Every structure is written in structure tokens, then in C-alpha cells.
């Protein structure tokens, strides 16, 4: 395959950036889901008392 020094970095950067965006978005969503669930549970417990 010709031009490998140009092809490999272009694919690698694309995969890294898209992967980083995807994993970052997924992790942020899970973090906020857990935090919201914890707050909602505490709020429900408090109102039930």
C-alpha cells in the first residue's frame, strides 16, 4: 500500500477523536443518570417521611 505515512494518521486521528467523543458522551450520560437517580430517591424518601 502506498502513502501509508499519510493514511494511517488520518484514520487513527479520526477513530481516536470519534471514539473519545462517543465514550465521553456515554460516560457523562451514565454519570448524570446515576446522580439524578440518587437525588430523586433521596427526595422521594424525604417526602415519604
Amino acid at each position, binding site marked *: 500500500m502506498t502513502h501509508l505515512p499519510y493514511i494511517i494518521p*488520518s*484514520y487513527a486521528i479520526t477513530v481516536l477523536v470519534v471514539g473519545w467523543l*462517543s465514550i465521553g458522551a456515554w460516560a457523562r450520560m451514565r454519570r448524570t443518570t446515576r446522580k439524578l437517580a440518587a437525588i430523586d430517591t433521596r427526595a422521594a424518601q424525604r417526602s415519604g417521611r
Partner: protein
Amino acid sequence: MTCGFKPRERGSKVTIVEQTNVLAPAGTRSLHRFANPGRFLRISGRVLPFLAIPALLLTVIGLYWGLFIAPPDYQQHDAMRIMYVHVPSAWLASAGYMALAICAVFSLVWRHPLADLAAVEIGPVGAAFCALCLISGSLWGKPMWGAWWVWDARLTSMLVLFFLYLGQIALVRGFDDPQRGYRAGAVLALVGAVDLPIIKFSVDWWNTLHQPATITLTGAPTMDSRMLWPLLVSTIGFTLAFAAIVIARLRAAVMERRIRGLLMARAQAA
């Protein structure tokens, strides 16, 4: 003759969203239904797996097909394989900015609350794809043109788009009052949308080093189908990935807003 509005009863619990829904034109009422955060979270939660899983599969298939199976170009040889990451990035950089401009219209005209949040979340993703387009284009340009960068109309207009993204990102986060930031970002997104037709037609209006479009809506593609199919697959895969990333970020932003609201209510009650 009635105007169709019911006067709001004193003490009734009509939300801002419901009020906006009544005041909105018929065509936008259905869109305002999605301004309800609970409804948005429910619907987007169902949609997200149907975007994320095909996105992953199609992107992997498209990139593998383009890298190892598609034939090399008779002039550009294997450097042409950069097209399978460059073209989707360029398309999504432009489409992302178009989405920002649409959000700006919804924010400025109809005050759609989710449009502001969507604009905040689309900006960094669009900027990342714009940067990928510029980097992969540079890596393609060096072996083909002998230069990493030329001040060509297509390249320059794409660089302007990247700076517009950076400006929008800075504006929506740069004010103490978020509403002012959202409005400033929306105005920039609308004004900056003028760059999109310039990017599209730059290769026709000026004598550029960048090649003209090989795929158009009106004519047949000037590309061999063995190269066209992997390009379409990777473009669809990246587009679904873009949508999945934005929806996941938007879900997180909606939940973060709800968490802030709950914590503030708790602090006030204490």
C-alpha cells in the same frame, strides 16, 4: 369571535412549555411537545440504541471496506483512501453547522428551550468533525499537492467554519447569564450560516486546487461504484455516530439541568 386561547386561571399549574405550546403556530406545536424534558428523555432513550449500534457497525464496515477492500485510484493510488474519513468529516462539519443554524431559528423565533441546549452540545461535536476534516485534508494534500496547506477557497472557507464553531462555543459559555450567551451564540450561528454555500460552491466559483464535487444530487457520480459504496457506508455510519453523540450529550445536559433545579429547590427548602 374567539381567538382560541383560554385565559389562564389563577393558581392553575400551567407550565411554560404548555403556554408556549398554545401560543406556537400549529406546525411547531408538535416540536414544542419535545420541550418537555421528561418526554425528551423517554423518547431519546428509546432512539439512542437504534442510532448507536448501527453507527458503530456501519463505521467499522465502511472504514475496513475503504482501507482494505476498495481499489486504489489510478492517479492518486492509495492516498485516495483518506477520502473515507475526510468526506464524512467535511459533510458532518457542514451539516452540524446547519443544525446549529436551525437551533438558532428555534431559539430566537420560538424560544424553544431544548434548542439552546442542543446548540451548546452540537457546537463541540461539529468543531471536532471540522478539525478532523482539516487535518485529514492536510494529510491528503501533502502527497497530492506537495503542501500541507494552501490558501485555496475551499480550504479557507472550511477554516472559517472552524473559527465560527470556536466562536459559537465561546459565546454560549462566555456569559454569566446563560440566556444572553445562548442568544449571542444563536446570532453567530445564523450569520455564520452564510459560509455554508460558500464552502459548497467555492470549487465552482473559484479556480481551486481542491477537486470539484464528485457526488451531486442532480447528476450521476463520477466515481467507480467500488469506491462509492464504502464511501456511502462510512458516511452513513459517521452521520449516525454524530447524531448518537449529540443526543447522548443532550440527554446528559437535560439531566444536569434537572439536577441543578432539584439541588436549588432543596437548598431553598432547607
